[in-house]
């Protein structure tokens, strides 16, 4: 039997993927944009809407980075508002385990689950550094290993809090005056060097019992965390063989913790460009890439790697033949800028030389390489192949425009996936997000 495709709709955010110079680009902050995007995603029967999160404005050379879309809503608040204008689609937000506290975040997610009638999800990220930490009471004091330890304890505690109310805790018997059943709520205590908690949860069990948990992070620690706690992995592995390898690795870890292959879905980020012919799609892809990586964006990217002023360089020329400044950090708040600078520069040179790429084309190659480019038929067939051949369980689709970025995908690709019989033709009425995704419906057993 063919395997079902699952799709998440990523509201485009704060990075150069989002083309704001396009005349049809709308606001990235007005609620009407979010409402439009959510309604379209629901029209396309996406499993869930997905939001990334960044907790500080990015900086370039000590000043706010001003070339990309900047500014976004508070993740939980916007998802709660979207719960009011949608019926079936899941609502998944990225929320840090480093800059939140378990009691509070668990109650917020349980609240979102109640308000959405079982559609809440949490992309649990650990991302933290002193730059982001400077906005919080809890500063940036945890190293990588401890961040994942905190994340694991955080997830474990959240699950215990969510499980701490009995299903039938609320009796509300007006005659006897008994609102709450005796022993309805379990005490949740946890003491470690990271947490010292002795809590009684204050939100009744929510429709999903346990909101969906998504993980985004690639390290061995990250994969272990996903194996233990997540229902979905949001990965960056989109190249076919690499995706298959990632799929095998992660799914292979599940048996050891008593989980099935389908209990953990893998939905990598994917972009797409459509055309009536392959040629037209490629042309559009090139145009979009040029809008995503404008000359100043390309130069800025290099400046972040080299930590030098490259304003005098020609973006259509070759890479600068100079050494990096390895002094103070120049770029702040950007993802994936942690690799050792020199080895990264060596890699960049290698790619640029092998393919004879200018600065701008190199940066396009790195940041605007669209995952699926072709006719709707070709894109549908490609997506289907990834799923049938166990490279992914589907994709987290991100468009390049706000808020219309997924309209074309919904109109032209979804129907073809449906024709192939591998994508739903309607939501199951009243299904929770976990049911929509087909991940284990009951809470994982939690020890007291």
């Amino acid at each position, binding site marked *: 039997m063919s395997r079902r495709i699952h799709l998440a709709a990523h509201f485009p955010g704060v990075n150069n993927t989002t083309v704001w110079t396009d005349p049809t680009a709308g606001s990235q902050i007005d609620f009407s944009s979010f409402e439009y995007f959510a309604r379209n995603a629901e029209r396309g029967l996406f499993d869930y809407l997905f939001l990334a999160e960044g907790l500080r404005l990015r900086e370039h050379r000590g000043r706010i980075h001003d070339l990309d879309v900047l500014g976004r809503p508070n993740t939980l608040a*916007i998802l709660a508002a979207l719960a009011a204008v949608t019926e079936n689609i899941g609502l998944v937000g990225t929320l840090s385990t480093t800059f939140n506290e378990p009691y509070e975040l668990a109650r917020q997610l349980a609240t979102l689950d109640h308000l959405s009638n079982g559609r809440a999800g949490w992309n649990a990220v650990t991302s933290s550094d002193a730059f982001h930490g400077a906005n919080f009471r809890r500063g940036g004091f945890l190293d990588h290993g401890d961040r994942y330890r905190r994340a694991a304890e955080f997830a474990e505690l959240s699950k215990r809090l969510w499980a701490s109310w009995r299903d039938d805790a609320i009796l509300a018997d*007006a005659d006897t005056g008994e609102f709450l059943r005796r022993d309805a709520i379990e005490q949740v205590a946890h003491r470690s060097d990271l947490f010292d908690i002795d809590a009684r949860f204050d*939100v009744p069990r929510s429709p999903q019992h346990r909101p969906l948990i998504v993980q985004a992070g690639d390290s061995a620690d990250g994969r272990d965390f996903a194996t233990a706690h997540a229902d979905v992995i949001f990965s960056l592995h989109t190249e076919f063989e690499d995706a298959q390898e990632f799929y095998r690795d992660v799914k292979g870890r599940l048996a050891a913790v008593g989980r099935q292959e389908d209990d953990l879905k893998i939905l990598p980020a994917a972009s797409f460009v459509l055309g009536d012919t392959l040629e037209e799609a490629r042309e559009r892809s090139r145009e979009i890439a040029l809008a995503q990586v404008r000359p100043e964006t390309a130069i800025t990217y290099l400046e972040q790697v080299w930590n030098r002023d490259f304003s005098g360089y020609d973006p259509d020329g070759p890479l600068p033949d100079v050494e990096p400044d390895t002094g103070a950090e120049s770029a702040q708040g950007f993802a994936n800028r942690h690799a050792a600078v020199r080895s990264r520069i060596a890699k960049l040179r290698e790619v640029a030389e092998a393919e004879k790429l200018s600065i701008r084309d190199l940066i396009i190659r790195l940041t605007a390489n669209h995952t699926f480019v072709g006719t709707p038929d070709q894109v549908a067939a490609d997506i289907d192949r990834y799923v049938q051949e166990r490279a992914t369980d589907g994709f987290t689709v991100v468009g390049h425009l706000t808020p219309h970025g997924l309209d074309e995908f919904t109109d032209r690709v979804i129907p073809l996936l449906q024709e192939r019989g591998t994508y739903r033709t309607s939501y199951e009425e009243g299904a929770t997000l976990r049911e929509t995704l087909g991940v284990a419906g009951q809470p994982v057993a939690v020890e007291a």
Partner: protein
Amino acid sequence: MTEKVHIAVALDGAGWHPAAWREPTARPTELTTAGYWRDLVRAADDAGVVFATIEDALTLEGRTAEADAGIRRDRVRGRLDALLVASFLAPLTRRIGLIPTVTTTHPEPFHLATGLQTLDHASLGRAGARIVAGSSPQERANFGRRGDGPVGFPASGHVEDDPAWQAAFREAGEVVDAIRRLADSWEDDAIIRDVESGRFLDRERVHNADFEGEFFSITGASIVPRSPQGQPLITALAHQSIPHRFAAEHADVVFITPGGAEEAAVIVAEVEQAAAEVRDEPERLRVFADLLVLIEATEAAAVEAWDRLEERAPIATDAHIAIGTAATIIDEIRTLAAAGVDGIRLRPARLPADLTAITEQVIPVARAAGILHDDDASPTLRQRLGLPLRSSRFAAQEVSA
């Protein structure tokens, strides 16, 4: 001439009376559902209620002073996060201000600030916050982050006699400062989308909060661009002189709990005195008197309903209680208006019953009698209350520079 006032409502669980959930009109198994809150707040919105506050607490037993709170089986237990309930209600309502209760001791001020800004965006300018200072030992155990804080109310009954409470109010003041600074961090027109130069925003018009306090610091600007009201409406409930001073210094609206009209006049004078001494805010502090109400078609029916509730669970409340018909409540409102308050926050004893009576009887009759401010169709909560929209302090600096 009658003084005109605004009518607001305060929403909590099944109502403010601890036995309210046992009334036949109550919906005790729906208190954490979307439908319950949608119905309540839409009714208030349609009736022209100026704002609704939504209670919250970070413990199972809430903020009750009852000695045996624990897990009492005869009380409503279980609630939703108020800021998220308000956010959910934003797209479902048109005019009503949405004011969730927020606690200042545990949550990250940065998250509170961006959450309130987002509520303001989603509601197109109707966001506020009711600030609650301090924490209980149970809250601290739930969070496990810090051990310091008030243990209970001091024996004198005055929070100003307890250094832990004094500190809690100083911290709450910092949280409000941080919320306001972050709200100001993007000037109105910071987003320029200048295709020519390739700049999405003018970074000269986005400012780091650079907040350094006794309790925490916040370096960066908000991640949320400036919202329709500029700043959310800051409100606080105050019974005593430290809270009065706190409200005078930091709030836009203070809720007071006079026993009657005479006391209301005294408190208004005290609050105005405090404001004269400590207030930084550009606008006069607005004063709303709280009134707990139970409304029936006849006085006798109201008294009977009240007695029934009291027999089941006697109420302990800070607010003045008005029991009677819509006319009784309107008389109370009129008297409080004459005492110089700007508005009345009605606390329905029973939900939805007393809210229904407020929206269907009290408000239409009071409006017809000319006691209420006319709805001038102002789009934002601040404007409805006669407060101007706030411009960013940073924009003001540039102009004066």
